[in-house]
């Protein structure tokens, strides 16, 4: 039984993060709805062939973030009032921006020059979209 989770070991992101993002993605597109049951830790570990400890960590963090709930003896479910943790998405954005700022500093760019580059790239991406 192979699940449709795509976990790659050549992806620079750690395994637990990949699993986490795949679950969040499923919730975001409605594949998993609030209250839906998700596989037990061991079942998911066997399905996607990733160690139990990694799935444990994933579920722990998702629970802490309010994305899933585990009821003792009943299994794990998507949280009823799931917020996909916008704050976490913002944190992710911030870390990307920090990297950009540091890279710009290496090139001795000013803030305005960095902002201009950002606008240019944003335009390019928009025009690339089919």
């Amino acid at each position, binding site marked *: 039984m*192979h699940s449709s989770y795509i976990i790659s*070991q050549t992806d*620079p992101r*750690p*395994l*637990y993060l990949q699993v986490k993002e795949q679950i969040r993605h499923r919730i975001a597109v409605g594949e998993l709805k609030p209250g839906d049951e998700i596989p037990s830790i*061991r*079942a998911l*570990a*066997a399905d996607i*062939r*990733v*160690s*139990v*400890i*990694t799935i444990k*960590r994933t579920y722990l963090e998702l629970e802490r973030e309010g994305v899933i709930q585990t009821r003792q003896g009943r299994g794990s479910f998507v949280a009823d009032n799931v917020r996909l943790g916008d704050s976490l998405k913002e944190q992710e954005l911030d870390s990307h921006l920090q990297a950009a700022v*540091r890279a710009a500093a*290496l090139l001795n760019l000013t803030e305005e020059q960095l902002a201009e580059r950002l606008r240019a790239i944003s335009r390019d991406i928009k025009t690339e979209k089919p």
Partner: protein
Amino acid sequence: MTIESSAQAFALRGVGKSFRYFKLEGLDLSLPLGQIMGLVGPNGAGKSTTIRLLMGLLAPEAGLIEVLGYPVPARIAEAKREVAFVADDMRLFGGATLAWHMQFMASIYAGWDQAYAVLLMRRFGLRAEQPVRSLSRGEHVKALLLLALARRPRLLILDEPTSGLDPVARQELLTELMEIVRDDSRSILFSSHNTMDVERISDQIAFLDRGRLVDVRDKETFLERWRRFQVDLPLECRLPALTDIVAESREGRLATLTTNHFQPTQVAAVEQAGGRVHEVQRMSLEEIFVASVMRNRGEQLS
């Protein structure tokens, strides 16, 4: 359920064994039930010796060994009812067929699952009437694994299980191994040079080198604690003395620091010394392993 109840798949305490050119010393290693442990080490590190000690094939000169709660080698025969062992230098009886071996195993082990054995036979592309002598190396390993898996053992011990397996067979083996963890009372110990596989499915990882246990902890902790810093440093600046730095190298304005216990304070310390940490990299298990062994060998010399 056995009479012996134990929360551990196996335990080695203070185990020692010496040979003419090799010595295994002070080995403390254990695995809770329901987990997978990957044993990583260079050739000659003592992985096979450790496994053979667990299987009662070698008698320890010091220390205690327990497998599924049974003392070894005192009650190894009982333990082996629930332990399956496959090694890459193991062979089946050449004068018989795979079917003969399946019948042989079925008559010995109560837990033999014939339906599963047949399924595995199909998945591994083997035929029951095939004489063992006619099997290629890879097919032979697959046959050994089939016979071990179909017993549904409580503990599966594998010594280099993927050596000689083609990539497809390797993936099939990983799938079958992970099927075992659905049951939280079943455990696996495997030694492998394939660090990617170890990194993927292990819960616990142990590093062995030259007869000693270099490091053992759960996988996530390993991967979270080890980092490599790429630092840009003006020529006149010196790298600060930091704790938990395992390796350090410098080439002009570029320096690389390897740490086995990452803390953000380390980054701050480097920047205070005038350097700029332009990248903090995670390390693969293989890189962690090599760095651990190099450090261990360095310490052994000094």
